């Protein structure tokens, strides 16, 4: 039996809209749940006190410090590598075997699950190089994790800079490197920043990598060789061991709010860049 095309269209649309509504409801539920249960926990004391009694009491100050420390380290390490790769791929080579190999490597690296990166960081940085569970081991491993994101977004940003800009510079007698540093990179900066911010967002939320590279010490990490417990790891431990639901919700709220804000800013920056050059 064949349905009338118009009836089958109505049917299909109804089903599709229903599925879309379900998807959106799930996601809205997640945000609202975290906001309602978590926001009331966010007092100034919660943010400025160190955790006490394994996290049952006190705040998350040392975890905030550890998160910032490790994230900054990862970004500082990965940004020059990522942006350098993007410059090489866009400005110095035509499509060739070497660019294909580099792009393919970045793509594969992007797909490596975080638990594998955790294993790798654990065996190389923690054990072989003797850095132990530390900010350094965590930062190095996270840098590898975010490298593909920085490469991809920087490449897109640099490609979006109109070719005329380069031609004018070169015709004025600037060297290629001067053209890149004075004109191309400044024009692509919003896009490059987008990639870096997305990487910050991913670093803040990462758990599996850090559990085995940065450890879970509750002290505030001072040197690069101190172990540090980031907010995401702290949240995981609070939730898994059932230490304190209010503190878990509070930590989750901070995590989700900061990541959403960072991603939102990154997205807005990219939109602005795309609008300017299209």
């Amino acid at each position: 039996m064949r349905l009338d095309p118009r009836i089958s269209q109505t049917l299909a649309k109804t089903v599709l809209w229903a599925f879309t509504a379900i998807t959106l409801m799930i996601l809205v539920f997640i945000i609202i749940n975290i906001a309602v249960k978590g926001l009331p926990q966010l007092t100034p004391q919660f943010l400025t006190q160190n955790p006490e009694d394994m996290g049952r009491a006190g705040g998350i100050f040392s975890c905030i410090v550890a998160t910032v420390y490790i994230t900054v380290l990862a970004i500082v390490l990965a940004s020059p590598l990522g942006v350098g790769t993007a410059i090489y791929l866009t400005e110095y080579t035509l499509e060739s075997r070497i660019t294909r190999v580099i792009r393919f490597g970045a793509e594969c690296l992007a797909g490596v699950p975080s638990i594998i990166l955790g294993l790798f960081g654990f065996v190389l940085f923690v054990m072989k190089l003797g850095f132990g569970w530390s900010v350094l081991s965590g930062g190095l491993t996270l840098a590898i994790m975010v490298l593909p994101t920085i490469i991809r977004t920087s490449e897109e940003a640099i490609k979006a800079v109109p070719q005329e800009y380069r031609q004018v510079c070169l015709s004025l007698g600037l060297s290629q490197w001067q053209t890149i540093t004075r004109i191309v990179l400044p024009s692509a900066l919003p896009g490059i920043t987008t990639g870096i911010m997305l990487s910050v967002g991913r670093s803040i939320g990462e758990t599996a990598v850090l559990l085995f590279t940065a450890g879970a010490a509750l002290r505030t990490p001072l040197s690069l060789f101190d172990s540090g417990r980031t907010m995401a790891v702290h949240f995981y431990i609070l939730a898994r061991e059932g230490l304190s639901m209010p503190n878990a919700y509070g930590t989750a709220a901070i995590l989700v709010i900061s990541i959403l804000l960072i991603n939102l800013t990154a997205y807005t920056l990219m939109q602005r860049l795309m609008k300017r050059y299209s």
Partner: protein
Amino acid sequence: MSQGKFIERVLLFLALSAIGCLALITIFIFKEGMPLIWHTGLTDFLFSSHWAPTRGHFGIGAMIISSLLVTLGALVLGVPLGLACAIILAEFSPPRLKTILKPTLELLAGIPSVVYGFLGVIWLVPLIRDHLGGPGLSLLAGAVILGIMILPTVVSISIDALGAVPDLYRDGSMALGATQWQTVRRVVLPAASSGIVTAIILGMGRAVGETMAVIMVAGNALKIPTSILDPVRTLTSNIALELGYASGRHREALFATGIVLFVIIMILNLSATLITRRR
């Protein structure tokens, strides 16, 4: 050497970092894990389900099956929902709605997996325990949470695939008197199929590799599940649960588990790349 040449060399060196890291990861994971696979024998390691690392039994059969089942479950849930979302946003929704919803969905990809796991424990696990029976921590719970987690990946890549189909195709089909739905089903979806398959494969990769959320909701029991309400331990969970205290052969076995996971993920990524390139 001129300055320009020197800079080019330095940049090439930086550009090799990503592939270099990938090579290092591969070398270290294999070097740490292979001795155990030789020792146990590949077939025993892959197909035996007897995992008692302190007594020298290293079989990850049950975990491979669990990983595959959880991933399959995630796809059963995530693909229809995600694809429906993508079709609505790309083809049927007013443009304004699309400009709001697409970024919203992409932002949600940033929610950390521990948060999904936590909400799974708080809401989903009790729901399953009270209404369907079993311990609640289960294959089903893992599949549902992963299904939700792969939504942003599936939606975002599928929307791009649908958006890449030229409007000429739609206009041509509509001009022949087809309804909008017929156009989508017979013309747009087939034209976008390789992109959609890529979306599904990448979603699958995300589900297979996900660790924290699965540990929290799937129950981590060491056996082949006989029902979707049974607790299961995936490859990723096995590594994360035991790495903290493992040593010697036991630690090697966890790296060997990593090798299996790594190979599965690389096969998935390679097929995604090949499909995209063919387009």
